């Protein structure tokens, strides 16, 4: 019964967000699945595709606080986490929380900041806490990070380290909308749509953050058959022995695949996992966790190619073939 409630809530949230973000239904679905799977998302796409709008709309619909950090080369870790500032009046150090202390964090162009600043998010993303001067402070729940990066520009960027990448549940690639969708976006603007003012389109809050936490718990009831575990293990294992792969996906990838799959199953009102859940989400979950050999990169092989090939080789459990 709880799964049905989850599916209804998911559908309502999705429908509301899709009112704002046209033509990106798959992206919205995956982001929502990541939220309910208690994961973070790295969105790769050129500017102007509505990434910020998506996060703002999510904050409104989910009833969560939203903050944005624009990553730049001179951004310091304390600019993200906050720090202790001396208060002359109190003659003591006062903690001044950074923008990470929020529920929905948009880390815009995360690869423009150096590795040290990027790493300031590691603890926040993994443990949902920030430790400064030996004091650990927990972030508000739910905490969810959406980071973006531009796939085109390479000058003045700092590629995310593998440890950081691994902490993102999914890497979602956003493309340009179709011609008709783009016309619909223009039509919305003609009729007065203002992305900076979500009230103009009457975007409603569908859930509270407490309800979001409850929904996150619901996916735990999704049953996982042994064959599905075998399938996940097989997929992830194949990334480690693929000839084009230098470093395969970690066990965290397996866990991510499982949790994301369960969220997908629940979103469809199913209380059990099926191979489709895994296969549909495998590209988003695995593509940023697969490090290619240099010779494969020279040949133009991409991580998506590798994952796609693996998905076409790995036998699906209990198939008729």
């Amino acid at each position: 019964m709880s799964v049905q409630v989850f599916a209804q809530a998911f559908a309502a949230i999705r429908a509301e967000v899709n009112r704002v973000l046209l033509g990106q239904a798959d992206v919205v679905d995956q982001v929502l699945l990541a939220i309910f799977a208690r994961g973070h998302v790295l969105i790769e796409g050129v500017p102007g595709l509505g990434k910020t709008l998506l996060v703002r709309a999510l904050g409104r619909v989910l009833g969560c606080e939203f903050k944005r950090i624009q990553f730049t080369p001179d951004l310091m870790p304390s600019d993200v986490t906050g720090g202790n500032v001396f208060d002359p009046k109190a003659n003591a150090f006062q903690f001044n929380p950074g923008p990470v202390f929020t529920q929905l964090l948009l880390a815009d162009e995360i690869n423009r900041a150096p590795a040290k600043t990027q790493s300031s998010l590691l603890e926040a993303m993994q443990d949902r806490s920030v430790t400064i001067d030996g004091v650990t402070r927990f972030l508000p729940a739910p905490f969810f990070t959406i980071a973006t990066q531009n796939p085109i520009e390479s000058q003045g960027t700092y590629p995310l380290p593998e440890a950081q990448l691994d902490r993102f549940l999914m890497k979602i690639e956003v493309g340009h909308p179709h011609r008709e969708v783009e016309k619909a976006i223009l039509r919305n603007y003609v009729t007065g749509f203002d992305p900076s003012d979500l009230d103009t389109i009457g975007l409603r809050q569908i859930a509270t953050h407490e309800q979001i936490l409850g929904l996150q718990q619901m996916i735990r009831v999704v049953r996982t058959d042994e064959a599905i575990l075998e399938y996940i293990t097989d997929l992830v294992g194949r990334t480690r022995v693929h000839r084009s792969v230098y470093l395969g996906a970690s066990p965290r990838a397996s866990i991510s695949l499982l949790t994301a799959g369960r969220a997908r199953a629940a979103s469809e009102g199913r209380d059990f996992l099926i191979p489709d859940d895994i296969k549909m989400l495998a590209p988003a979950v695995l593509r940023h966790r697969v490090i290619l050999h240099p010779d494969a990169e020279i040949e133009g092989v991409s991580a998506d190619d590798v994952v796609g090939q693996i998905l076409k080789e790995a036998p699906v459990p209990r198939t008729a073939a």
Partner: protein
Amino acid sequence: MTATLILLAALLAGPPINSSDAERSTQEVLDQKRYYFCEADTEYIPGPSDLRWCELAQAEDYRRCPGYREVCNFEFGDLDLDDLGDLEFGAGDGKDGETKRQGRANRGARKQRDPVEIELPNLGGFAKVLMWLLLGIAVVAIAYAIYKNLVRGRLDDDPPAEELPPDPGDSLLAAKLAARKLVETDVQRLLARAEAAAAKGDHDGAIADAYAALLRRLEGDSLITVDPWKTNGEHLAALRNKAALLDEVRTIIREVEQVQFGSAAADGPRYQSVRRQVLAIVMRATLALGLALGLGSQLACDPNQESIKALAGLDNGPSGARAVGELLIRHDIRASHRMAELEQLAQTDGAIVLLKGVALSSDEWKLLLDWVERDGGTLVIATGGSLPDQLGLQYVPGEGRTILVAANTYDWFYSGLNLQAPTSWGLETQTRVAPNTDDLLVRPRVDEYDPQTSTWINYESQVYAVEQRLGDDEGRVVVFASPDLWTNASLAVGDNGALLVNLFRSHDITEVEFVDDFTGSGADNPLESVRDSKLWAVFLQILILLGLLYAAVGIPFARLRDPLQTRRRSFVEHVETLGQRYAQNRAARHVAALYSAWALDRMRERLQPGGATQGLFPLAQAIAARTGRSEGHVMQLLVQANDLREPSSGRGTPADLQLMRELSTLLAETGSAR
């Protein structure tokens, strides 16, 4: 007595066809395109016997068969009539046809044909030796291939000692082993297997098999493709253009997945539910196919056309008999061209018409007459050839009359019809031999004045057709003095068509078989066909070839094989190819020198930035410190690498390759982490 019998038969039989009905149906038959000789402006090239009806048709101005005028006026010109094939002008001339034709109704006659002799060309001595040498080599090669395969087969039969049982954790190996298993793809067998599994209580397997049957059915309809890596969702995506089917399949998939991956129990009711839904789709597809085929066959040919197909063996020309058959069919008499041998008479019910040119042996005559006498059949003899003595009939020379009348003017089936037939022989009955013989058609007595000789010519009445009753079971034999009436062209004249129809209607006969030259020439089964066509040797050779191929290759035909996968060459393969080209050009030492110089430069860049001129020893010290190797060993490698930089004419040795590998290792160990 005769009148009583005729009256009784008339009461029992259906009403006779009148001349107007017969003319209409005859016209419809002859108007068909297949009777090309009746089409206006026809270019039909007639044979001599095709022209026998010209005079009578002309008298009616060819009204029923306009094209016959062209046929009759055909200018033979330079055509040699002997080349036209059918030169039997005087059909019904009473000659013994058995000597003219090796009757095809007689299988024995066919078997007596001269065998075809094939002579091999006279090869020279060298050619013979070469031929036998090639044959010998071929035999040895085949024997070797068979032996090799048998040996390999035995090896394959051995238990795979080296093949370890699959590790449950190693799904790759498990998948490979699973891929070797044969997968059942037949829908019916899958359903049967599902039933068997359900009967054993294995409902899980039963549901899986039933679902597999559904997928295979959809695959058979080219709606989806079943692959080991495809999920149910992908199958549904393939059906997105079939909305109704998509919903049904989705329902089934949900139920199956609840069992396979969910918490639903695989029990009998659930299996029955899945099976019922699967069968609904599977049987619908089968039904649709059947309907399509059935509807197609219905659209392709109506029953009447199907009946007419049974006459396909009969000729469409003026001397043929196909139009006669069609006319009978139009009047609800099942007419067909008999292909089976006369020996199988027991299967025949109705009448048999012996057409022009059929020559039977005495045994076959006996068989036919016994059939008439014993089974009450009707035999119509219109061969124009010899008659069996039992009938007590003989041909007599005919005289110049074409008109025919019913011998019994009270017979309402034949009287009043305008009957005509070309001049031919007549019949004479020996009453002593054939007491139960009645005249059916006669040429009437005619007194004609010949203006040329200014004399009167008297033609006596002459019998043209007789009917003879045999046995107690109303068997009868009808004999015609000539086969003319049983031709397509005869339908173009008078009421001949009505006569032929009424001949059978008068005795309520609904089935007629035409026997001609080709009767009995067909094979009853494929083996007989092969035997008749003398293809045994060819088929035997093909079978032997297939057997040898099977023995040599050892793989049954039609097994599914994965297509060869084309893949892009990897970077390593490019490098390997490049290296091989250097080696082929004996430039291995050159490559080693280049690599050594490059490696030394890279290591200096890493470990001695700005100190490239400090010599090898400091570099060796730095490398040793970084890698933990002994300084002596590193120094030795560096010296060897440095020596290679000097110009050398050497061709390269394995030691050069070893040195390159050592340098590569040093580079990897001194380089930064990737």
